[in-house]
């Protein structure tokens, strides 16, 4: 009897914990946004919310999960925020803000759902007054509640250093008067770019992969995709927000095809298209079509369109390199990035041959930004091999191998290098 009773308590405890975890995942950013929107004090909002979650884990297993768990959490967190502010003995101005906050939070808690201020939170996290390198980590922490340790490994930073930098960024939001607001029409385009860039930075290493070698293994693709979906859902009329989501969905759709059964790396050209996630590709295509109806082209839509042409191979059996070159031309005009130029050359090689591409590549070789850019060396090695310059190719492969982080890609390149004729 006693054992059954304990089991019931345990299962109730588990249910409460599960509910708390589910609320944490789905509502973390929503609650932080609501708590911080007035005070602009993200750190205090997070602390208060952490206390509220701890209280929930103590209370819910014993008393049952409340009917509106989010409202319960936000009410507890609000009380903590006000207590903390009183302890700091802030002045009258702060009192007023907190009273406003209290009214707002109470109204929210009484209403059918928590109002969604996450868009304002995204814009605050990607504000131009913050260090560009901290914007993506900040979003992951503040919107999704990821801890500094996990973010540190994903971004190859020391946990202590990233903790400090996140703390500084939050202090800056509070002290520099960074607004929790969606910028107005005139300001929006530039500010939107910083938000989307930060979301993309959370996903991977930016500009994609010339040789089909996806470099950084962030291990945060699901979280980044969540942010991209959120940005697109909150800004359904912004074509670039849709473009970014389409781009990331396309990349994600091929994840399963990038490794074979032995865990070895498979480049894009050799991937089994059956292994691509058809549903995700269909979603990407639909999102991109929706973006294109807005009639404002941009970097992310163009990049998504490049991915879309790769997908054509699944239907037609061959890649449409002419279209790829045109898209890269447009991207090049927009960004002037040497990485785009490099990607374009790989498409050129498919049509005009490796020698022609190598000739153009020599003009890129002087760009200092490419010296330790692994995909440059991988692309160069590949083209040199195709052109029959085996000695030079071997040296370029050595650079590509030495600069590669991913052991599977390293093995792949080592095999290519070893396969070169003497």
């Amino acid at each position: 009897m006693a054992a059954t009773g304990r089991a019931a308590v345990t299962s109730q405890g588990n249910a409460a914990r599960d509910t708390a975890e589910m609320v944490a995942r789905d509502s973390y950013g929503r609650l932080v946004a609501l708590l911080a929107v007035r005070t602009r004090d993200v750190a205090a909002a997070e602390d208060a919310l952490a206390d509220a979650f701890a209280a929930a884990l103590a209370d819910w297993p014993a008393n049952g999960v409340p009917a509106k768990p989010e409202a319960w959490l936000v009410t507890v967190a609000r009380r903590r925020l006000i207590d903390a502010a009183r302890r700091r003995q802030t002045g009258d101005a702060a009192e007023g803000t907190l009273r406003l906050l209290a009214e707002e939070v109470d109204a929210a808690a009484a209403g059918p759902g928590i109002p969604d201020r996450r868009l304002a939170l995204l814009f605050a996290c990607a504000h131009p007054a913050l260090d560009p390198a901290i914007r993506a980590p900040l979003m992951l922490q503040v919107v999704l509640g990821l801890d500094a340790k996990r973010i540190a490994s994903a971004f190859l930073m020391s946990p202590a250093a990233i903790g400090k930098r996140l703390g500084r960024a939050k202090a800056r939001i509070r002290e520099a008067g960074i607004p929790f607001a969606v910028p107005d029409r005139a300001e929006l385009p530039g500010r939107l770019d910083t938000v989307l860039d930060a979301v993309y930075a959370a996903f991977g290493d930016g500009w994609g992969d010339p040789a089909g070698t996806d470099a950084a293994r962030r291990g945060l693709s699901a979280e980044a995709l969540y942010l991209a979906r959120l940005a697109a859902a909150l800004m359904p009329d912004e074509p670039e927000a849709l473009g970014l989501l389409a781009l990331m969905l396309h990349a994600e759709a091929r994840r399963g095809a990038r490794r074979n059964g032995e865990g070895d790396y498979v480049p894009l050209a050799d991937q089994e298209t059956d292994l691509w996630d058809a549903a995700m590709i269909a979603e990407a295509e639909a999102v991109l079509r929706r973006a294109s109806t807005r009639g404002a082209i941009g970097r992310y839509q163009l990049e998504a369109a490049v991915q879309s042409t790769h997908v054509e191979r699944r239907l037609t059996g061959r890649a449409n390199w002419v279209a790829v070159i045109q898209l890269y031309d447009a991207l090049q005009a927009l960004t002037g990035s040497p990485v785009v130029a490099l990607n374009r050359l790989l498409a050129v090689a498919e049509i005009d041959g490796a020698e022609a591409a190598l000739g153009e590549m020599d003009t890129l070789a002087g760009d200092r930004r490419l010296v330790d850019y692994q995909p440059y060396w991988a692309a160069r090695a590949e083209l040199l091999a195709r052109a029959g310059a085996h000695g030079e190719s071997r040296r370029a492969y050595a650079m590509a191998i030495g600069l590669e982080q991913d052991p599977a890609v390293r093995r792949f390149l080592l095999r290519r290098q070893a396969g070169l004729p003497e």
Partner: protein
Amino acid sequence: MQFMLMTYVDETGFTKLTPAEQEAGIAAYRAYTEAIMAAGVASSWGRLQPSAAATTVREADGKPQVLDGPYADSKEQLGGYYIIDVPDLDAALAWAARCPTTSHGVVEVRPFWTEPS
């Protein structure tokens, strides 16, 4: 900033590899060393003999005491190092992540001591 990247590996691991795997492993290290030198990042590097070749010296009761074997009797032993000069820790970590050691051992990244100016 100057950092030392110290590679710690389980020394028995290498002998368990097939000759082809050993060759690939050596090629990976050679490529990494070539890349880190070509990028102008490393000023020197070195590979050490296995720790069985180590000898320690300390003072005991005012007299030198010499012992065979490494200082720390741990599974993973220092196997080599790279001395690099990069702008900051983030850049040092980026190079550490590229080191082939990370897939079979650990790379410790430590800044050099500098005299306070």
